[in-house]
């Protein structure tokens, strides 16, 4: 009987240092022996500098999201891949705030993060990426990622298990057919998943003879985060999302199926 191992994988911290602490605590309680972060450390939330020491203290393996690349290189925008003017307006607000408040000492760290992480679990080739293995800001939504396309990604990038984030909504799929394959979007821990609950989501991977994923909701002190966001002058729309669990911005990127489940 092979030894059972557990790993925690999360993404989209978006400066939510309170959720980050809650997720790390939850992962430890569930016996995760290593923790991975799929990028986008800043954006949306308050006090971007607070997440770095937490990640370092816990030895989290971090890869580089589009936000981390942009802040690390001092780019003029976050490269999130929004197409709508309203989405871009809010993206700009949070990017400018985050860029101004991320101390220069963390820029080299952000620049040094790897774009992909590869490892092997139970003989399975595991590939972690921010958006997709081929593009850092590609959105992999459940309703717009057909099996055949995911199979192609696994094939092109030599992987059996693919873990991604960036889009902010968690889902997982075991691909039918001989080739098999597991794809998990671990969601984001920086803001709720547009499901009317205030918890945030991460993935717990269990490995024995195979790799299985469980998507785990985690509660944290969202009132306190909302308070900090208000004090920092972040948009009321963002605060509302934190307190209600419904997205109020970035709605245009959602496929119609995912959007129809939300309030806005």
């Amino acid at each position, binding site marked *: 009987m092979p030894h059972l191992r557990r790993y925690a994988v999360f993404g989209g911290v978006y400066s939510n240092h309170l959720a980050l602490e809650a997720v790390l605590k939850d992962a430890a309680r569930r016996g995760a022996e290593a923790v991975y972060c799929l990028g986008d450390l800043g954006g949306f939330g308050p006090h971007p500098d607070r997440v770095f020491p937490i990640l370092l203290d816990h030895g989290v393996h971090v890869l580089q999201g589009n936000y981390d690349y942009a802040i690390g290189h001092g780019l003029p925008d976050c490269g999130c891949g929004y197409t709508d003017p309203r989405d871009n307006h809010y993206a700009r607000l949070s990017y400018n705030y985050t860029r101004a408040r991320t101390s220069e000492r963390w820029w080299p760290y952000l620049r040094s993060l790897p774009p992909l992480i590869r490892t092997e679990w139970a003989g399975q080739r595991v590939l972690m990426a921010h958006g997709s293995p081929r593009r850092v800001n590609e959105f992999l939504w459940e*309703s717009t990622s*057909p099996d055949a396309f*995911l199979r*192609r990604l696994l094939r092109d990038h030599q992987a059996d298990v693919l873990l991604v984030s960036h889009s902010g909504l968690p889902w997982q799929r075991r691909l039918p057919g001989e080739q098999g394959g597991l794809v998990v979007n671990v969601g984001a821990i920086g803001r709720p998943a547009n499901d009317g609950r205030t918890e945030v989501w991460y993935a717990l991977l269990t490995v024995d003879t195979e790799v299985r994923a469980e998507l785990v909701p985690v509660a944290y002190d969202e009132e306190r985060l909302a308070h900090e966001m208000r004090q920092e002058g972040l948009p009321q729309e963002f605060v509302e999302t934190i307190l209600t669990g419904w997205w109020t911005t970035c709605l245009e990127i959602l496929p119609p199926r995912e959007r129809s489940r939300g309030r806005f």
Partner: protein
Amino acid sequence: MPVALPLLEQVLPVLTEAEACEVPFQGLDTLWLQLTGTLCNLACRHCFISCGPHDDRVPVMSLSRIEALLAEAEELGVKEYYLTGGEPMLHPAFFDVLERVLKQGPTTVLTNGLLIDEVAAGRFRSLFERAAYSLDVRVSLDGMTAAENDVVRGRGTFARIVAGIHALSRAGLSPVLTVVEHSAGLAAEAARQRFLAFARSLGLKQPRVKFLPLVRIGRGARHTGRQGAEEAVREPVPAEGMASLQCSNSRLATEQDVRVCPILLDAPHARLGQTLREAHRPVRLRWASCATCVYEGLSCRT
């Protein structure tokens, strides 16, 4: 889309193979199916493929052709599908085809909305709910009033399109409204906001609007008075710009062949072969419309 023959000089390449820059092919992400060829129940003034009610230059797709393309697309790992025409809902097996395509991937239907009645809206709704992947409906409109729209799309069309949108919204769907920028400044943010407000007034709860630049081929060219050789992509395009062009990751399939991109339905030199695999190769930016893509960021995708 009408009887009017395509004006050949407008779909002929404006650059030679050697002059035009090459766009590498990055794999087939988006497959456009020209479901009804050039058959349409309208004959809009700006139609870039000059479709119409009696136009069978490009024939309606047979079910066997659709199956063959889908089988190939599955192997190639296509990410998304678009059903277009002409008016795709004129296809005799439209909803069966849509259901079939949705089994394989997310699908967007590009329609002029004329054929969307209560029954059709209900069928869209049930596919939207049941299908494994996302269904999106895109309705073309050319203004917020009959006066604005009807000069382009034809007399009386505004009321009929709006009725179609109403039917969708009553069925709980929020189609994307597509507007061609046929008058200056319509894409400006203020106009966009007005259009969104208009969409909400039609009962759409989660309104979305897509502005398309006018493509300068087909009737669109006559309409703008601009002609082929005046515009072409003569400068090298940076790699990033190349990757955002549809021809780098999309193809248009018809009953007879596979073409460079959804814009070049009519262009005789834009044929890449009969199968998707044959079309799996780089193309060159030889057409006047390429300037619209490169310099105005035209993409037909939602």
